[in-house]
């Protein structure tokens, strides 16, 4: 099993306050991982550190055996949708082709790249929507557009920030099913506060509350979740699906 993400002794601080510590974290090539934790606990910070968007104070991060600078090109990042301006005039096709933004000085898109983008859109159930404005789509469809953009970067790992937060429960299930399908070919890492929805799909859970702790899904129980969130949580177990399909290291 190849290590895709390897973190050692990581420390991230904002103005002298340590917001994230991670002694050791290894994620593997075929993992389906969920990063959970309370708001402000450092989930997004961990994600951004892995993507090279913030510089850690100390420690090291390796992506696919490379530095973050080189390895980040193998990561398909899918941010939270509400960051976008609904009035921004872009079509679905424009958004997907942003994956190829740094190819060529004039930035024209080749016919081959367009064809590839159309194929990805139809694979993700968005056929025929390529000339629509992104604001015309539903929450679940928008999330799929962002997944399509990430797929167009030809990634080895998908990294999603709260992919189900803007979708209704049926659309959320649909997105999780899609990710399960994509996980056959690549690693999937997602940040979610919604342990209920994600826990039956993922094989490992990374708990982030200033410190980073890794659990196999079956080890998640009421006590560890209460410790993580520092308060009583209602825990719904999905024992039926919650088999451990990977050896916990």
């Amino acid at each position, binding site marked *: 099993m190849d290590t895709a993400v390897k973190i050692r002794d990581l420390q991230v601080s904002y103005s002298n306050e340590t917001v994230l510590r991670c002694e050791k974290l290894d994620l593997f090539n075929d993992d389906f991982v969920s990063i959970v934790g309370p708001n402000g606990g450092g989930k997004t910070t961990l994600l951004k550190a892995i*993507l*090279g*968007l913030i510089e850690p104070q100390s420690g090291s991060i390796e992506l696919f055996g490379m530095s973050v600078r080189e390895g*980040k*090109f193998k*990561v398909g*990042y899918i*941010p939270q949708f509400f*960051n*976008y*301006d609904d*009035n*921004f*005039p*872009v*079509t679905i096709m*424009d*958004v997907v*082709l*942003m*994956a*190829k*933004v*740094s190819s060529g*000085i*004039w*930035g*024209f*898109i080749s016919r081959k790249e367009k064809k590839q983008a159309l194929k990805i859109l139809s694979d993700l159930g968005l056929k025929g929507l390529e*000339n*629509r*404005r992104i604001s015309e789509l539903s929450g679940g469809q928008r999330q799929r557009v962002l997944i399509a*953009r990430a797929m167009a*970067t030809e990634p080895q790992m998908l990294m999603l920030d709260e992919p189900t937060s803007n979708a209704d429960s049926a659309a959320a299930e649909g997105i999780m099913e899609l990710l399960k399908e994509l996980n056959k070919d690549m690693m999937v890492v997602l940040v979610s506060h919604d342990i209920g929805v994600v826990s039956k799909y993922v094989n490992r859970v990374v708990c982030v509350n200033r410190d980073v702790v890794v659990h196999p899904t079956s080890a998640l129980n009421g006590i560890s979740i209460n410790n993580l969130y520092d308060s009583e949580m209602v825990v719904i177990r999905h024992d039926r699906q919650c088999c451990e399909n990977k050896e916990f290291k």
Partner: protein
Amino acid sequence: MIDDLYNLYLQYQILFQAIFAGILASVSLGIIGTYIVSRRISYVSGAISHCVFGGVGAGIFIQNYIGWQWFDPIYGAIISALVSALIIGAVTASGKNRDDAVIGAMWAVGMSVGIVFIDITPGYFNIASYLFGDILLITGKDLLLIIVVDIFSVLAALMFYRRLMAISFDSEFAAIRGVNIRLYYILLLCLVALVTVVLVRIVGIIMVIALLTMPAAMASGFVNRLWHMMVISIIINIVFVISGLILSYHLALSSSAIIIIILGAFYLLVAFFSRRRVNTAAN
């Protein structure tokens, strides 16, 4: 009789020259205005235009007090616009500062520096044409500047279209895909600075922000793609500059004020009807 005709010709010559300048300026205005509106940095263009006044003041001081007659205040305007763009770019790109406070401070300090320079320069200077603009006073040198800025804007739009679009839509994603977002942001701010200097000649420091944002904001309601927004806002600019000029000429009122007022009236109408359209669609 012949004198009257000749005067009329002269008057219209000025008007035609102004219309020509307006059409040329609309090109860079539409392109850069589109980026300003879609990236929501209109307050940055406001700050740069007020810093231009500092440069104009310095230009007047250098020309009249130091005695470098060749130093037209427009050079001071160009230098101060570019310097303020670089400062804003450096300060806001790090994300560690209070961007709005820094930009607000530059806005007022730039203006104040200009006033002090004019105070310490002996003599009287008509600063109204810088504050409120006067497209009828456009010179050959101004036209040359407008053409140069057009060339830069069109080149940037062609060469960096995808990158600037990706950065404006989602700078984080663009950064992960290896685009140097800081470099392109500063490039965009420098283009904003040059367009601002052009606009100062046409509508004046105080009204720059309106002409940079309203046409592009109007266009954004009707288009699905960024380059369509550029084309439509160029057309809107041309229509309003020409109609504003002709109307102000007939009413004998300030051209810049009339351009902005009719533009503002249409902007409100478009905003009202597009909101109603959205509401009806929602019902």
